[in-house]
């Protein structure tokens, strides 16, 4: 009952936010100088051709009209067609998302596999060596720009250019995921180069969350029941900290959508980043505004998902009250 109410309220907010985003995106893009007709017409075009193109592309309509036409399409599930390529924006985004989302997921998986155990180890560490190592790892990992780590990986592991030629350093197979082995290979280095950086962040969060837990009484309680400190921290502390960790992972994932653009560029991957840059550069505004709206919807959905997961894993929130927290 409360869950349904919660979902309904969040859904209403979600739609409201999307409408606001659509207006913002539409208006912001109209401030940009330049238009797709002059880009298409090029350097030697007589002004008449630019005018004719503008007319054909519907750029001579008033802004409110353009917005309404776009919104009308959106309501029917039609994101519109790119003015430049004449392909449906949805298909265009789908094609590019096949590169970006696996990349984000691989990067995130690497980040979690590295970050959470190391974070726990770091919080629980007592040997000065382990502490020093984990501090170093967090600082170095967090300070390295993705561009640099990417170049390092290319120099170390790329086929042809690297010390140990293992993996392709750039590009995505033209056949895409029809060749899963090659597709995965081409994502490994970029995923690693972003994964270790994001992992360092997650490691720091895990360490400080678990550190708080260690002094919070939950762990003492566990130890009073006969657990070792490590067991109490991992079984109780980590569980209590998990909602916050989920928020952090959700936020991290949202950040990675823009974060992986650097890696996409360095490794010449045809992902969402290069598509957005090209479309903005060409002033293919219809495509850009739909793409940005999709991304915004994705961010909002991610937030919604994080909230739902919170409720599922945290019994204190499940029934809509937080009164036991104080107790």
């Amino acid at each position, binding site marked *: 009952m409360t869950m349904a109410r919660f979902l309904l309220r969040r859904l209403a907010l979600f739609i409201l936010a999307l409408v606001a985003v659509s207006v913002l995106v539409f208006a912001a893009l109209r401030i*940009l*100088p*330049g238009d797709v007709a*002059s*880009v298409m017409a090029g*350097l*030697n075009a*007589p002004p008449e051709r*630019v005018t004719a193109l503008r007319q054909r592309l519907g750029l001579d309509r008033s802004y409110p009209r353009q917005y309404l036409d776009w919104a009308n399409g959106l309501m029917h599930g039609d994101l519109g067609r790119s003015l*430049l390529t*004449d*392909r449906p924006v949805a298909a265009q985004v789908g*094609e590019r998302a096949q590169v970006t989302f696996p990349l984000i997921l691989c990067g995130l998986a690497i980040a979690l*596999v*590295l970050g959470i*155990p*190391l974070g726990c*180890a770091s919080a629980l*560490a*007592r*040997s000065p060596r*382990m502490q020093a190592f984990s501090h170093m790892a967090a600082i170095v990992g967090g300070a390295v720009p993705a561009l640099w780590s990417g*170049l390092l990986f290319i120099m170390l592991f*790329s*086929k*042809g*250019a690297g010390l140990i*030629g*293992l*993996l*392709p*350093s*750039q*590009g995505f197979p*033209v056949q895409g995921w029809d060749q899963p*082995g*090659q597709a995965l*290979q081409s994502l*490994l280095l970029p995923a*690693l180069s972003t994964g270790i950086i994001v992992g360092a962040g997650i490691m720091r969060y895990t360490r400080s969350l678990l550190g708080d837990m260690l002094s919070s009484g939950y762990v*003492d*309680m*566990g*130890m009073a*029941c*006969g*657990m070792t*400190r*490590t067991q109490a921290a991992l079984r*109780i502390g980590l569980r209590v900290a998990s909602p916050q960790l989920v928020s952090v992972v959700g936020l991290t994932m949202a950040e990675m959508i823009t974060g992986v653009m650097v890696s996409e*560029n360095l*490794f*010449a991957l*045809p992902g969402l980043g290069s598509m957005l840059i*090209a479309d903005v550069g*060409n002033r293919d505004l219809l495509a850009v505004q739909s793409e940005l709206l999709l991304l915004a919807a994705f961010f909002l959905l991610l937030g919604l998902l994080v909230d739902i997961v919170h409720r599922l894993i945290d019994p204190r929130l499940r*029934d809509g*009250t937080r*009164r*036991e927290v104080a107790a």
Partner: protein
Amino acid sequence: MRPDEPGVHAPGSATEAGRGHDRPGPRAGADDRPGPSTDPTLNEAYRPMSSRGNSLPWKLLSLTLALALVVSLWTGHRGGQTDRTQGGLAGSISIGLKLPPGNLDIRNQSGTALDQLLIGNVYEGLVARDSDNKVIPGLAKDWEVSADGLEYTFHLNRGMRFSNGHPLDAADVVWSLRELMDRHYQGSEMLRNYRSIDQVGATTVRLRLTRPYQHLLWELSGRAGLVFDHRASYDMKTQAQGSGPYLVETFRPNDSVILKADPHYWGPRKAKTGTIRIRYLADDNAAVNALRSGDVQVLAPITANLAGPFRSDPSFHVQAGDDTDKFVLAMNGKGGATSDIRVRQAIRYAIDHKQLIASRGGADKALGGPIPPLDPGYEDLTGLFPHDPGRARRLLAQAGYGPGRPLRLRLTYANTYGAELGDQLRSQLKAVGIDLDIRMVEFSVWLQDVHANKDYDLSLVDHGESHDFYQWATPTYYYNYDSAKVRQLYDQAMDTVSRERSRDLLAKAARQVSEDAAADWLFNYRITTAWHQGLEGFPVNLNQSLLPLADLTYRKA
């Protein structure tokens, strides 16, 4: 009721938690390691003898690394060349280019990326051009020009067909040219003095002009002369159906194109390689990595500075080709300070072209005027404005600028050309007392501010087109350059039927433009191409606007 619900649940969850606590109890008791105390103060003082208690994270870490290594080794082994070879020749070749086309609509979309990809490969023109920029037969096997230069009669090849099976005949040629002119497609503005085109026989067409036009044939070798199938209907932005040796199999905007040889190609330039993958590599370093790792067999262009290691590597071949790209530093003829010829001349004297070229790797050529060596009317004009900072300063002083009144100019250019060029110009002009305020913008912004609104002092663009001198004879063009003498010379050069006389007139006009310091031509950009040994038939000249791939082959060493 609702307020009670949490109350009902709360004890339940508390007992759950309690049970959770209970469970590990016995196991913890069974653990024979010396456990830490339950007293936090004792815990603080406790230091284990070894880090054995924390070995779990280390194990996890090493396991992860080992797993990563195994995965990468496994996937690394599974990769590799998938090219099937036929008689030693590779069945497919990958080539790396730089500027990607956003769509395939060659009639509406500007930019040389489409010329490069489609002309001669997928679409064919009435006539074609060779690697020296000279007109050669295309769909027309020969032609006659009337003595007054007003009538061109083209005789077409027989048995021509489009890739969809439709025959290609005089009707298609006539339809294509009429559509071009009626609908103002790209290239129509280049057909000066066009009057009509008519079908004379099944394989003969006649093009009439109102006045002679010296560059007509050359223009017909570009977009203006392309012949499309008048019976076909397809989405030109995503597909291309022509009569050339290749079909477009896959097109991914701004990313890649796959060309497949047309098995039913009609003509003499049958494709020698079955599949050609074209990848557009925007990032120079990624492009070089692709070449080195063999992901692409040829890369054009390769930045001259990054080509060094390939030159000394015997498994690669590196060569710079001639091209018509002119890096034009335009000076607004109606701008505040730049309307003064002394200022413009001072800028030209202040620029050290040798230094610019050397810093880019040395492949480019100095160019003193608007016509590059591959175009008719070329003359070496580099002597007109030698590097002479003293003279530049004197000219500026005459124009009223000096230490008391420094000259500040704004240089607007597209960010695709990189920051280096602008920085070099700033330091060179600084030496003669000109402050350059550099504004790097997106190409679309440049198009609006500079090209359309002419709101600029200095602008920098690579004008890649060939035969584009008309820009200097068009006062409305963004240069804001208007010289009656140049216009007259250009018109005469186009009107004459004598090629030699036309060339002389163009040379005269070009010298005038250069003397007027309407712009500075920083250099003639020469494309450097690098390829793996064993690759043959890749054009080196003009390959950013004309890239016939039919003869391309690759034999792996």
